């Protein structure tokens, strides 16, 4: 016997199955701001980012590439404008490109074994993924013209879609940057393990 005494248009259809009942519950997860779950992050202004970046470049010019790498990884831009985040990403990539392939693993191991080192490599991994996401999109590195929004980082735009966009002209430099990022990715995974990749995915602090 049916509990429904009188059938109506609404009860016979299956529209009710698509009702988002979470919206109707006052304290459900869709009805509160999930950012309140975490302590707020310190904001980094554009000026600060520029200052860090010029210091890092100075170290790089002085030949201290390990210091430069540490410098930019210890001050990640978690909370800042898009332009600040982008310019920091470019600095990181610049540092990465300047380091010889044979120096990568020893340098990563030295960083990993210092206090705070594992955290630094987690940050590096975040920048590698961000770098792969942005170099494979149409605008090559060095352009801060296109304002990036987080919505543009769709699964199609990870490093592996690059093959599809090969016939473009701007791709020589993109391909170069990508191969640098990929070889760093391999080396970082060797040193910091798969846990490092997992942390990039779970972490709520995005670079």
């Amino acid at each position, binding site marked *: 016997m049916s509990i429904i005494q009188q059938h109506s248009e609404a009860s016979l259809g299956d529209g009710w199955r698509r009702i988002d009942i979470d919206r109707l519950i006052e*304290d*459900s*997860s869709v009805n*509160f701001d*999930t950012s309140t*779950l*975490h302590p707020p992050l310190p904001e980094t202004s554009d000026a600060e980012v520029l200052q860090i970046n010029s210091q890092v470049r100075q170290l790089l010019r002085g030949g201290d590439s390990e210091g430069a790498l540490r410098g930019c990884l210890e001050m990640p831009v978690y909370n800042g404008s898009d332009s600040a985040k982008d310019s920091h990403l470019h600095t990181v990539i610049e540092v990465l490109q300047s380091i010889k392939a044979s120096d990568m693993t020893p340098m990563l191991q030295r960083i990993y074994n210092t206090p705070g080192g*594992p*955290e630094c490599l*987690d940050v590096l991994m975040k920048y590698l993924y961000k770098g792969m996401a942005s170099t494979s999109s149409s605008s090559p590195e060095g352009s801060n013209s296109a304002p990036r929004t987080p919505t543009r980082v769709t699964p199609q735009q990870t490093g592996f879609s690059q093959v599809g966009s090969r016939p473009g002209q701007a791709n020589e430099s993109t391909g170069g940057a990508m191969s640098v990022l990929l070889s760093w990715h391999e080396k970082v995974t060797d040193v*910091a*393990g*798969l*846990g*490092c990749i*997992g*942390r990039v995915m*779970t*972490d*709520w*602090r995005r670079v």
Partner: protein
Amino acid sequence: MAAPEVHHLFHHPIADHSFSADRKTLAVARDTTVELYSRVGNAFKLKDELKGHDKTVTSVDIAPNSGRIVTCSQDRNALVWEPSPQGYKPTLVLLRINRAATFVRWSPSETKFAVGSGDRVIAVCYFEEENDWWVSKHLKKPIRSTITTVSWHPNSVLLAAGSTDAHARVFSAFIKGVDARPDPSVWGERLPFNTVCGEYMNNSAGWVHSVAFSPSGDAVAFAAHDSSITVVYPSGPDQPPKAIISVNTQLLPFMSLIWNGEAEIIAAGYDCEAFRFKGDSNGWQLSGTLEAAKSRPGLGGGDREESALNMFKQMDLKGKVKDDTQLKTIHQNTISTIRPYEESGSGVTKFSSSGVDGRVVIWHT
């Protein structure tokens, strides 16, 4: 170290397992039923099946003294199974939740149990004599997401819970008339129901898989999806904790952890093997795996010398030289639960693990 005792029960994931106090009965959650195995010689034989849930059973726990079994399921119900000469009799518990029940554990006093759920509440259940019924009280605030795990303090009043909102919390689950007033501890003195004694998260904020009080109850540890374990040493009520120590590992995330004394934690998870952590309030480190190299099933021990004929045969048949379809660990898939099996005064001497591969393994620490 003696070799671990491996029981391959079936080819199906084990959501949770529990041994009775005499270790002769083993309850495992399989699909919508709970299977009871009893020890016959060196093996476990299926003895009974507890059928009462109509969705996946997520957790099972046997009370050591009374022998009562509590189970909970995605069908939003919990059942208490009372042992009787005619078999186990189920009693439904009024959980009042409208999402799946995810985790259940008896309190050490065995007068209460806590059920975690996807409804952002923990139902603390106790027996009401006058109604002859298990009823529940809800721990609600400030939980913002599914409760994945709970763990009782030795005093049966405090309850630690881990959640997918990335927080591990310590609550008071004090029920008037059931519990005696607890002794004051680092967690607080006056502890009415739903007092939040602590709320912790680690830096990268992975959702929490497992949480456990240390044997003294003065520290709490949790494992999160960012492949870390975090140990919290509180200093007193309404004060920041003395120390919060996070160990980020290179491994895959841990699903379950237990304390072995105050200075050792054993954790296991997606890497299919158990790992040992050592430390105190000054710091913790990963100290190694519990999987002894010789105990690994190489099917005859290590790499056998292959004949050239055999090698080419393998290459022809399988396109590769070595048969590497087996993991080098005893568990062949994720370990979902580890529990103390045998305890001595100073800690755990044996513990048991169960996982997605349908094995229950008893390990020496």
